[in-house]
């Protein structure tokens, strides 16, 4: 009798996943706290890793009825006696030391917070749970995946339209050769010979027997031809196609930023956080997300990410140039019916005063109609926060934008003063409440 050894290694692991989901649901509040805290404290490049979560033990305690660690008369049997003899006494540890009296910690044995790590995915799903795309209509419309077919070899089954004649006949030929199916010419030659003999007027003994022999071989040949078909279902080969889903729900995100001298590193940092969040948010919603970075001073330019965040320019500030550049890029590369267009603009609020009219016109006529969403955040140096916290002290650009904000659900503007503000502002901009309003 051999033993039954079963290889289970290929069975799916992660059997415990439903348990984990239940656990995470229970610990949600603690996880949320951790996530929000981490957004504020984390380094910039680190938004994609997991997060360690501390949960107060009490929230996930599994109480049982068990004896306390102190109190009552007890006997202990211990191994490794070295010097004790019967009757020796040992001092008790002072009460309160030694951990875990029933008064010391109500949970019993004084365990610490429960610590565990959530994955980047779980982290993000908590992060975005309460957020919702402001306008999902387009995405929903495009939710159905389109499939693109491409050739992928041959298969032995398929629809008649895909029959590959060349392959099928090649198979048929090799089968016929292999099974020694008589060729048509051989058959014809045989028939001819028989006919010739039959037509012969005075057949001799030899001819007669030859005729019988020929007829017999013709019959067996005919039988073999019937048995081995010229073309058989096993010969058939079809062209095979494989389908790959095409990402159709695609979005492009425009990051517009003022990089003139008045934007300090701190302010750029705030802006960058906002852009990062927006990007993460979009990558979760769309299969494919393009980012276009447009920076501007008195003229605007599309640049790569590195340049966008790190290089510094001098010059005045003309906001309309950035909007113009954005419109140009949209027209050149991102047809509105195929792309969901998002834009986030970060600025310190400076604008060349004569630009105001042009800027507003571009915004309302050129940019907003094609955008799913246009978010404007005005960033401030933390040191200026006190001055600008008052809503009376606002920049020119803010005033201009405010005048168009009313009645446009796809336009939002917020002011950001420090790192801690970024997430709440982001949250507010994209919150469900807003979508409902």
């Amino acid at each position, binding site marked *: 009798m*051999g*033993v*039954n*050894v*079963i*290889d*289970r*290694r290929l*069975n799916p*692991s*992660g*059997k*415990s996943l*439903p*348990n*984990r*989901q*239940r*656990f*995470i*649901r*229970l610990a949600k509040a603690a996880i949320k706290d951790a996530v929000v805290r981490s957004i504020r404290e984390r380094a910039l490049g680190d938004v994609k890793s997991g997060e360690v979560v501390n949960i107060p033990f009490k929230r*996930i*305690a*599994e*109480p*049982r*009825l*068990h*004896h*306390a*660690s102190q*109190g*009552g*008369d*007890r*006997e*202990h*049997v*211990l*191994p*490794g*006696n*070295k010097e*004790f*003899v*019967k*009757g*020796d*006494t*040992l*001092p*008790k540890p002072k009460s309160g030391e030694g951990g875990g009296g*029933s008064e010391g*910690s109500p*949970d*019993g044995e004084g365990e610490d917070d*429960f610590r*565990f*790590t959530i994955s980047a995915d779980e982290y993000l799903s908590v992060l975005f749970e309460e957020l919702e795309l402001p306008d999902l209509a387009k995405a929903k419309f495009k939710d159905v995946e389109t499939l693109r077919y491409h050739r992928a070899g041959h298969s032995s089954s398929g629809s008649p339209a895909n029959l590959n004649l060349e392959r099928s006949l090649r198979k048929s030929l090799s089968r016929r050769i292999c099974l020694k199916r008589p060729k048509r010419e051989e058959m014809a030659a045989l028939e001819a010979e028989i006919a010739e003999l039959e037509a012969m007027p005075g057949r001799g003994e030899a001819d007669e027997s030859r005729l019988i022999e020929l007829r017999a071989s013709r019959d067996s040949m005919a039988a073999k031809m019937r048995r081995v078909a010229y073309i058989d279902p096993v010969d058939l080969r079809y062209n095979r196609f494989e389908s790959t889903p095409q990402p159709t729900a695609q979005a492009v995100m425009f990051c517009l930023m003022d990089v003139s001298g008045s934007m300090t590193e701190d302010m750029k940092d705030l802006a960058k956080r906002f852009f990062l969040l927006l990007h993460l948010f979009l990558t979760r919603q769309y299969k494919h997300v393009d980012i276009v970075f447009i920076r501007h001073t008195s003229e605007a330019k599309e640049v790569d990410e590195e340049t966008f965040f790190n290089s510094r320019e001098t010059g005045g500030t003309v906001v309309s140039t950035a909007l113009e550049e954005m419109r140009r890029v949209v027209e050149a590369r991102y047809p509105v019916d195929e792309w969901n267009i998002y834009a986030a603009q970060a600025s310190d609020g400076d604008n060349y005063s004569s630009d105001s009219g042009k800027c507003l016109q571009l915004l309302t006529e050129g940019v907003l109609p094609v955008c799913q969403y246009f978010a404007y955040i005005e960033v401030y140096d933390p040191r200026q926060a006190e001055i600008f916290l008052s809503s009376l002290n606002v920049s020119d650009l803010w005033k201009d934008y405010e005048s168009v904000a009313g009645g446009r659900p796809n336009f939002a503007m917020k002011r950001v003063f420090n790192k801690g503000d970024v997430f709440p502002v982001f949250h507010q901009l994209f919150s469900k409440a807003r979508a409902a309003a």
Partner: protein
Amino acid sequence: MSGLLFETGEWNFDTLKRTYDAIEEIAVGEMGLDPYPNQIELISSEQMLDAYSSIGMPVFYHHWSFGKRFARDEAMYRKGYSGLAYEIVINSNPCISYIMEENTMTMQALVMAHAAFGHNHFFKNNYLFKEQTDASGILDYLNFAKSYISHCEERHGVSAVERVLDAAHALMDQGVNRYGRRSRPSLHEEQARAEARQAHASDNYNDLWRTLPASAGKNGGKGGKPAETARGAPQLPEENLLYFLEKFSPRLRDWERELLRIVRNIAQYFFPQRQTKAMNEGCATYVHYKIMNRLFDLGKISEGSMLEFLTSHTSVVFQPDFDDQRYNGINPYALGFEMMCDIERIATQPTEEDRQYLPEIAGCGDALGALKNAWANYRDDSFIAQYLSPQLMRKMKLFKLDNLAAEQHYTVAAIHDERGYKSVRRALASQYDPSLRDPNIQVTSADLAGDRRLVLTHQMHNDVPLAEGDAKAVLGHIADLWGFDVELRGVGADSSERYSYEMALADQALVALK
């Protein structure tokens, strides 16, 4: 030397089977063990972690606490604080042993000898397992439990199910029948019974009853049935709290009772393992030790792998002294293994002292016979009380320390000497006695006809109290299941009350809100 079963640490299915056959020949052919048929399953370390979180069972229902355990085990494992078990073995027929792909071939041999023959023999032959578990039905039952619970989750929502399971888990230790067992159907009949109950309920469903006014209160309308009319009066006192709540709770709905029943059955299935930890591990460790040595003597394993085996074996049976930093209670592997070896010594080479203490087996010559008898008919406490010899007490240098509430000092009450043997042995045995280890809590009054106040009595042993915070939390769970006031009284040996916790309805509402 072509007699070797394997030459390197690498294993493959061929060497596994060959080695298994060689082990089986020794275990069954020479030692005369009597295991269930074996089924050995290879798993990866990730699957081992999965298995941990479901108490090692191949199928188990879903609950957040398993997710919590998984998160903790995984973190410990990833950081390297703890390794994984080499094997998990399930008391089922056929007996399933999981072995990990990361193990070397020597470890696989050790694990097969340990689990597939040691534990397996113990499961099949020990009286507790025979009486209280149904090895051939457990996997079916767990399947039923899993599908029943996920069905309930679909119908009533995850959180409603979780609320009952949380409470039931809190009472798991008090959800077993300690003393003997009720005559009850085998586990695989449970499913049929549950379905029949369900069918009966839906057959007798009458839409007219819906028009009756709902009971008042915030639990009103959920349709708690008057249980006592249907089920007759409870017989008190009742030690199995889960059983009592399942049968007599006034407010539980039928599916909630079924959940309690599932948790109770599973608790009962694991109860023998909790009572035989040292014996079970001792038996398995002794068996693997004998088999590996025999394989070596037969020239079937190399010196290298024998050394590898010994390294791992000694670390398993290592017992740190009480004042050692590593001391964490008495190691059941160490105690069990030492006792098994000691029984062998007493049977074959007894001293005069052994003849005096253990006349039944001293010098009988049949070590395996004596061991098999012990494995079949004892549990940890009775086994220690019967077989712990003076020689072993001297070897382990056991001593007894008294910690009396009234005194300022610990007192060394007995040591490993002539005057102390019996006292140390009795005290060690009682440390393993389930009736002393778990608090003795029983339902003593329920007043089903009156205000339905439930009274639990904790019969305190030597005035050892309960952990208060946990006890109150569990009381909240009980009140939640019971639906009315619950009181827990601690009673000393002189039957005077030492403490009393109460969970009134107002508090219970708070608990429910949590």
